[in-house]
């Protein structure tokens, strides 16, 4: 039920983005094809991860659960953030609605949750909670909780990628590059420590998975998480350096 609803929603979001980009092109305004590709890539990753077949496998096999988690919580959010959906949305909405959205984005609440350190806690903290408490077992038994966990990972993953990159959609927080990079640093460390704790001590416990499967999943979490965070780090530095380069060229032009 949740899977079909989610698939419908993702396809709608994919179509809406392409539609909005086409409106921009028709109006003679530029919108990068890379961004469109990035958004569609994110949608396809989510469709793969939430397809009923994957859901069924992930329910019984912890390795599949982990692969699904990597895609929903780390890879897809990065692709979606790089597509700058908020900028496109602001451009596409009528003026009043865009103003309202801007006010919402600048609200104290959004500024708070999108700060890199808060997003870090929402993202990695939730993971520690899920795997080191009976929450994971409860999520296997309740479809609603299960759906909620997936939604949380997608939103928290998106929030974290956006807050660390502070772009391409303009950030609403004012955290420095150093703070953003240190949030990423702590995230990588927390990820790898959690994976080792799961591997070594067999968490989550009291679940219907074999210990061998849990260890394989923990290893997938370690290396897969590294890969996803490596991509995020590359995006972070690439964006910081291109900004720095642009500033230098500007400074030289002024001199």
């Amino acid at each position, binding site marked *: 039920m949740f899977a079909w609803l989610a698939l419908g929603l993702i396809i709608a979001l994919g179509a809406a983005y392409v539609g909005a980009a086409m409106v921009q092109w028709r109006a003679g305004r530029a919108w990068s094809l890379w961004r469109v590709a990035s958004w569609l890539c994110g949608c396809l990753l989510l469709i793969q991860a939430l397809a009923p077949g994957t859901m069924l496998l992930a329910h019984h096999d912890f390795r599949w659960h982990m692969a699904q988690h990597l895609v929903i919580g780390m890879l897809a959010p990065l692709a979606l953030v790089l597509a700058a959906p908020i900028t496109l949305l602001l451009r596409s909405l009528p003026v009043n609605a865009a103003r309202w959205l801007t006010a919402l984005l600048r609200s104290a609440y959004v500024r708070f949750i999108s700060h890199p350190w808060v997003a870090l806690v929402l993202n990695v903290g939730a993971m520690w909670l899920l795997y080191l408490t009976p929450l994971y077992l409860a999520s296997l038994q309740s479809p609603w909780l299960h759906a909620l966990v997936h939604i949380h990972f997608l939103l928290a993953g998106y929030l974290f990628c956006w807050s660390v990159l502070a772009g391409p959609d303009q950030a609403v927080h004012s955290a420095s590059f150093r703070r953003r990079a240190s949030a990423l640093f702590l995230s990588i460390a927390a990820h790898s420590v959690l994976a080792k704790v799961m591997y070594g001590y067999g968490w989550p416990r009291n679940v219907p998975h074999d210990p061998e499967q849990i260890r394989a999943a923990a290893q997938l979490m370690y290396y897969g998480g590294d890969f996803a965070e490596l991509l995020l780090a590359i995006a972070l*530095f690439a964006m910081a350096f291109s900004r720095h380069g642009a500033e230098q060229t500007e400074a030289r032009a002024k001199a």
Partner: protein
Amino acid sequence: MRNDTGGTSPPSRSLLYALPIGIGVMAAVDEIIFHQILQWHHFYDLATPTIGIISDGLLHSAELLATVAGLFLVVGLARRGALFKRWAWAGVFLGAGGFQVFDGIVSHKLLRIHQIRYNVDPLMYDIVWNAIGLVLIAIGFWLYRQASRSQMSAAHSAGP
């Protein structure tokens, strides 16, 4: 960095920026060869104390970020035409050797996160491991000497 005059950086910066690349490459070699291919030691063993896992996690994170940052810094130097290749290679070797020795002494012996191989006397492995690290450092140092010497002769021939 703000004091750069017209984009010229001292050659030592090429070395400095290349250091983390060497560290990251060595760490990747360790993970790929010893953890994945040979499976001599796993990325975690049951005898590891908590402080070992946490410090290992922080180290791992630092390596990953340092490699990416180093690559971008070196590419940045190259784009400004301020990259001194020999100095950069010296940095790569010094970083790789330094990491190897650090891993051999701190991780294997002081924190005891893991040994190189189990069910054998690790002494021989430890010696070879650290010796390779020292050889890498020696190559790095030799490259550094070469680079700084050619730098000096270039400065002499150019005149004041």
